C-alpha cells in the first residue's frame, strides 16, 4: 500500500523496491564477510600468541625433565667413611660419603694436583650424590669395602654444559667451567661415563640452592594445600552469600550497597588482599607466616567476589516457572532452593568457581605479602607447614643467577599449566555430569 503511494507521487522514475534491495545486497554481503573476518583474525591472533608462548616455554623447559648423571666407581672404604658397624643407622647417617666420591674422582683424574684444581674436580659431582651413596649402602650393607660403579648426580654446570653440547663440542655453553674442568667432562663423554636420565628429583624434592637438586614438589604441595583451603572456604561461603542475596535479601539500600561493594571487590588488585591478610590473619590473629592456611584464607577473600557474582547470575538464570511449579506444589522456600534452584544453577556456579580457582592458583602477589615467598626446602605436609606456591616458585627461580634455573623456570611453568589444565578438566567433567541430569 505504502510503496504504491510513494511511486505514484514521484512517478515511474523511482526504482522498484526489489532493485534497491538488490543494489545494496552486494554491499551488505561484503560488510558481513568483513565482520566475520575480524572475528577470525582475532582468533588467529590469539592462537598465534598461544603457539609462540607454548613453543618458547616447552623449547626452554623440556630439557629440565632430563638430568645429567656421571658414572663413578666408588669404593665404600670403611675407614674413609668412618663406619665401624654397618648395621648402625646413626653411623650410616653421619658417614663422610663425599670423601669416597672425592677419592674416586682423584683416582680417575690424576692431573688434579693443587688444592684449587682438586676443588674444581670435586665440583663436577653434585654434593647431593652423598644421598645416593648412603641410600645404596643402607639398602645393601654388604657393599662396605666393595668397589661399585654408580651413576651420580652431576653438578648443574656440567648438566648445562652437557645438555647444550649436542654433538659439537664448540657449541657448548661453558659458563663457569674452566678449561681443565671442560677437559675432564670431555674425557667422561669420550668414555661414555656421562648420560642423561629422567629427572625424578625435579618431581620429588623441594627447593634447593643447587639447581640439580631443586624440585617442584614442595611448591606443588604448597599450591595444593592453599587451593584446598581456598575451595573449602570460598565455594560454600560464596554460594551461601549468593543464595541469600538472590533469594532472601530484601531489595533496599543496604543490599544495593553490598552489591556495589561485591562488584568493586572483584576489581581490587590482588596485592591489596595480601596486605589485608598480613594485617588481619598474621598481624591480628597471629597466625604463622608462610603457611598455606593463611594463603588459602587470603585467596578465598580474593575469589569470593567472583564466585558470588557468577553464582548470582546462575541462580538468576533458573527459570521462574520451575520455582513457581515447586512453590505451587507447596514446597517451602528452602526446598525450592535446595531441590530445584541449586541443582539447576550448579553448572553455572561451577563455571564461575573454576575461573576463580584458576585465578587463585596463578596468583603470586598476595602470597608475597604473607611470606609464602620464603626459601623452603621441606615439602609441606599440611596446611600449617611453611610452604611456597607454584607461581611464587617460578618467580623465585626466574630470579636465580644459575643458568640451570632457566630451564627449571620454564619446566615449573609447564607443571603449573598442567596443574591448571588438570583442574579445569576435572571441573568441566564435573559440570558436564551435573548438566546431564537434564
Amino acid at each position: 500500500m505504502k510503496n504504491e503511494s510513494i511511486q505514484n507521487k514521484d512517478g515511474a522514475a523511482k526504482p522498484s523496491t526489489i532493485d534497491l534491495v538488490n543494489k545494496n545486497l552486494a554491499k551488505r554481503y561484503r560488510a558481513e564477510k568483513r565482520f566475520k573476518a575480524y572475528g577470525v583474525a582475532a582468533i588467529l591472533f590469539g592462537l598465534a600468541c598461544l603457539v609462540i608462548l607454548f613453543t618458547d616455554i616447552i623449547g626452554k623447559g623440556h630439557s629440565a625433565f632430563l638430568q645429567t648423571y656421571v658414572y663413578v666407581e666408588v669404593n665404600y672404604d670403611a675407614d674413609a667413611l668412618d663406619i665401624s658397624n654397618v648395621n648402625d643407622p646413626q653411623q650410616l647417617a653421619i658417614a663422610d660419603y663425599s670423601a669416597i666420591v672425592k677419592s674416586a674422582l682423584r683416582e680417575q683424574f690424576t692431573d688434579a694436583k693443587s688444592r684449587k684444581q682438586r676443588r674444581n674436580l670435586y665440583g663436577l659431582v653434585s654434593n647431593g650424590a652423598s644421598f645416593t651413596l648412603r641410600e645404596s649402602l643402607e639398602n645393601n650393607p654388604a657393599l662396605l669395602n666393595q668397589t661399585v660403579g654408580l651413576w651420580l648426580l652431576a653438578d648443574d654446570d656440567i648438566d648445562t654444559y652437557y645438555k647444550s653440547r649436542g654433538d659439537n663440542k664448540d657449541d657448548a655453553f661453558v659458563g663457569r667451567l674452566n678449561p681443565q674442568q671442560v677437559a675432564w667432562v670431555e674425557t667422561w663423554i669420550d668414555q661414555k661415563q656421562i648420560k642423561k636420565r629422567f629427572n625424578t628429583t625435579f618431581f620429588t624434592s623441594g627447593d634447593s640452592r643447587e639447581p640439580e637438586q631443586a624440585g617442584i614438589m614442595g611448591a606443588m604441595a604448597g599450591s595444593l594445600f592453599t587451593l584446598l583451603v581456598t575451595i573449602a572456604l570460598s565455594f560454600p561461603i560464596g554460594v551461601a552469600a549468593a543464595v541469600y542475596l538472590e533469594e532472601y535479601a530484601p531489595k533496599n539500600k543496604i543490599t544495593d550497597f553490598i552489591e556495589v561493594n561485591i562488584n568493586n571487590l572483584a576489581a581490587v588488585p590482588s596485592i591489596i588482599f595480601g596486605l589485608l591478610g598480613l594485617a588481619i590473619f598474621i598481624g591480628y590473629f597471629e597466625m604463622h607466616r608462610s603457611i598455606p592456611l593463611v594463603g588459602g584464607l587470603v585467596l578465598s577473600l580474593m575469589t569470593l567476589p567472583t564466585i558470588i557474582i557468577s553464582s548470582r547470575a546462575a541462580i538468576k538464570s533458573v527459570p521462574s516457572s520451575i520455582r513457581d511449579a515447586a512453590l505451587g506444589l507447596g514446597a517451602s522456600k528452602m526446598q525450592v532452593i535446595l531441590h530445584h534452584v541449586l541443582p539447576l544453577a550448579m553448572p553455572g556456579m561451577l563455571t564461575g568457581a573454576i575461573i576463580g580457582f584458576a585465578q587463585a592458583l596463578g596468583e603470586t602477589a598476595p602470597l608475597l605479602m604473607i611470606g609464602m615467598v620464603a626459601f623452603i626446602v621441606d615439602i609441606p605436609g599440611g596446611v600449617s607447614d611453611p610452604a611456597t606456591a607454584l607461581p611464587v616458585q617460578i618467580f623465585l627461580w626466574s630470579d636465580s643467577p644459575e643458568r640451570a634455573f632457566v630451564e627449571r623456570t620454564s619446566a615449573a611453568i609447564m607443571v603449573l599449566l598442567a596443574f591448571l589444565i588438570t583442574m579445569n578438566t576435572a571441573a568441566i567433567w564435573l559440570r558436564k555430569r551435573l548438566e546431564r541430569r537434564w
Partner: protein
Amino acid sequence: MKTKINENDTQITQDVSTLQTVGNVFSDNAKMSMRNVNVFYDDKQAIHDVSLDIGKNEVVAMIGPSGCGKSTFLRCMNRMNDTIDSCRIEGDFRLEKDDIYHPKQDVVALRARVGIVFQKPNPFPKSIYDNVAYGPKVHGLAASKTDLDEIVEVSLRKAGLWAEVKDRLTAPGTGLSGGQQQRLCIARTIAVGPEVILMDEPCSALDPIATAKIEELMAELSQNFTIAIVTHSMQQAARVSQRTAYFHMGKLIEVNDTKRVFTNPEHELTEAYITGRFG
C-alpha cells in the same frame, strides 16, 4: 465497522470502578469465597473490589481481555503472589472456614490444599516419576516406596497419562510432548491431593488435540476437585465450566451460569466481549 469499534473503545475504557458486579457471585455450597478483594502492584490497582464464590466440585471459568486481572485474582487464591514484593492484597479469602491470608495460615499447608497448574507446562527437569512424586515427598504423604508408587500411578491415571508413560517413568519429564507435559503437571498437582485446583490458561500453549484431552480431563477431575480456570478461549469456558466470571479492567463485571453468560449476558460489556467486539 471501524468507527463502531472505536466508539466502543471509548465506552469500555471509561472508569469502571463504579460498576457493580451483576449476576450471582454467591454459591450455596462454597468451597472458596472471596470478598471485597483489592490487589495493588505498587500504586497501580489491578483488582477492584471483587467478590466471588467457587462452589464445591464446581468448575468456574474466568474470562476477560488481557490484563483484566483474572490471572492475578487466581494466583491470589493460593498466595502465589506472595513471591512478588510489590504486590499488596486486601480483602477476605476463605477456603471453607479458613482465612487464607491469616497471619497464622501456613502458606505451604495452603498450597497443599489449593494446587495450581500454570499456563506453560513446567515439569521439573527430573524423571516423570520424580515429577509426580515430588509433592507427596515434600509433604511426607507416602509412608513407603510402595505407597509412593501407588500415588504416582493413581495420579498419572487420573491425569490420563498412565498408559502413555507407564513404560518410561524414569525418562525425563521435559522429553514429553507439550500436551503430555501439561497433563504431567496436572498429575503432579493432584498427587498432593488438593481440594481445589487452580488452572491459569492451561491450554494456551497446546494444540487443539492436546487441549481437547485436557478439557476432557477437567470434566472428570471436577467430580473430585473444585476447579477455577482462567482461559482466553470462550469456547473452552463454555465447554468445561458450570459458572463463568467475566473480568474487565480489574473489575468483576458479571458472574452467572455459563449457559446464561454465553446466551443471554446481563451486562453490555460481557456481551461486547463474547460477541468478539473487543478482546
